[in-house]
């Protein structure tokens, strides 16, 4: 084989390896260009050295261009799985998923403790496997959505349009109390989860466990819950709209205060109605028997009667405290309106 044919094979091999890192659409074209570049470089080196090209020169040319992946990287400078803007959405979602996974771990530990010979190692490995799966699915989902949705859709909650940002907007909120958008964005995600769970899958709210090798699950919510379901979902929706609006606006004003008070008053009213009316928690003997719950779980649930009583007392106390807070908020809102009117009247 003639030497120049050997060099060409060497260069073709290099171009092929570079091409392996490039998008299929442009690969052949770029490979051809790389080939002509390498051959031109070799001719130049040969002319400089004043002797015919040889293998050492060919290798020197390749060495000067660097490893195929390094050469290919220059053709793909923006080759990231996720853009920085999308990463801002990934962070709260990852925290949200992390909280759910932590809750799952605590529940699993709690249930395992009740077993005579809990398999801790297996449980932990399953949980770690779940963590990687959940976060991996989250990353891939966002990467796919980023490439398939119109620009700005994913980051709408956090991006208030950097291209048309108006500094005059700063003046409007100069003396207003600002909020952390991420906190309310995080709450919005949590509310979406609650709407999905309580709105479409209330039967999944319950307690379960592995008893004598058999999985048992007991829904906690009784049939009475269905009477309140639309009103509960409406509350979550109201709170969701409030969180999204406040996260976008970034600061408190009278409108947001009123919105918050209305949603809170509605929620407290609903909770009063639920406590005073038919019980939504179905952990009583008739209900347990209706669901053919294993004896061990019946005993466990009935022994938790004290816990349930404490739970209801805590809810009632929480309700009373939030009612007082709501009254104070309404009072403060009216006082601020009154003082603004007074200031406006004084100015005139």
């Amino acid at each position, binding site marked *: 084989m003639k030497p120049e044919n050997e060099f060409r094979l060497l260069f073709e091999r290099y171009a092929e390896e570079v091409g392996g890192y490039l998008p299929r659409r442009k690969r052949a074209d770029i490979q*051809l260009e790389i080939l002509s*570049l390498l051959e031109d470089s070799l001719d130049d080196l040969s002319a400089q050295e004043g002797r015919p090209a040889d293998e050492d020169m060919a290798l020197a040319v390749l060495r000067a261009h660097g490893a195929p992946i390094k050469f290919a990287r220059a053709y793909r400078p923006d080759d990231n799985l996720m853009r920085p803007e999308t990463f801002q959405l990934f962070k709260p979602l990852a925290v949200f998923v992390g909280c759910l996974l932590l809750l799952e771990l605590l529940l699993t530990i709690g249930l395992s403790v009740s077993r005579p010979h809990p398999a801790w190692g297996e449980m932990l490995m399953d949980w770690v496997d779940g963590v990687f799966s959940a976060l991996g699915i989250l990353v891939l989902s966002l990467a796919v959505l980023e490439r398939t949705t119109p620009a700005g859709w994913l980051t709408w909650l956090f991006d208030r349009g950097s291209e048309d940002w108006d500094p005059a907007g700063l003046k409007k909120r100069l003396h207003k109390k600002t909020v952390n958008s991420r906190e309310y964005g995080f709450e919005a995600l949590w509310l979406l989860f609650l709407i999905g769970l309580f709105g479409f899958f209330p039967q999944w709210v319950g307690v379960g466990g592995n008893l004598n090798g058999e999985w048992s699950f007991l829904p906690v919510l009784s049939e009475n819950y269905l009477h309140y379901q639309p009103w509960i979902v409406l509350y979550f929706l109201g709170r969701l709209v409030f969180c999204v609006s406040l996260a976008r606006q970034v600061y408190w004003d009278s409108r947001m205060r009123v919105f918050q008070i209305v949603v809170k008053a509605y929620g407290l009213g609903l909770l009063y109605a639920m406590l005073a009316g038919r019980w939504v928690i179905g952990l009583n003997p008739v209900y347990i028997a209706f669901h053919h719950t294993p004896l061990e779980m019946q005993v466990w649930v009935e022994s938790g009667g004290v816990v349930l009583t404490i739970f209801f007392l805590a809810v009632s106390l929480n309700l009373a405290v939030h009612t007082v807070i709501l009254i104070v908020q309404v009072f403060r809102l009216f006082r601020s309106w009154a003082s603004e009117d007074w200031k406006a009247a004084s100015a005139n």
Partner: protein
Amino acid sequence: MNAKQTNQLLEGYTQELRRGVIVMAVLSQLGELEYGYSLITRLAQLGFEVDQGTLYPLLRRLEERGLLESEWVVTESRPRRYYKISPAGEQVLAELKKEWDALVQTMQKVMK
């Protein structure tokens, strides 16, 4: 800070400076059809050293953005992809030149 760190910093800032002007340098030399290697040689003769690994991808990106046009020429000893500045590229180059002149004047005042 020792001499090695200073040199590293200087190298980094110098690279940034060159990165800032490379597009203008490339566009200015593509009034006629040129292929990548000849462009590298011409720029080197003018004192502007450019790495092949930098120039070739840059030519592709400029073409994707409509600032260059290209065609394969297969009549020579080997097929080569030739590039030439497009009408849009000429507009951009003219604006860049104005910006450059203004910047040079400003920097001369600043550096006095």
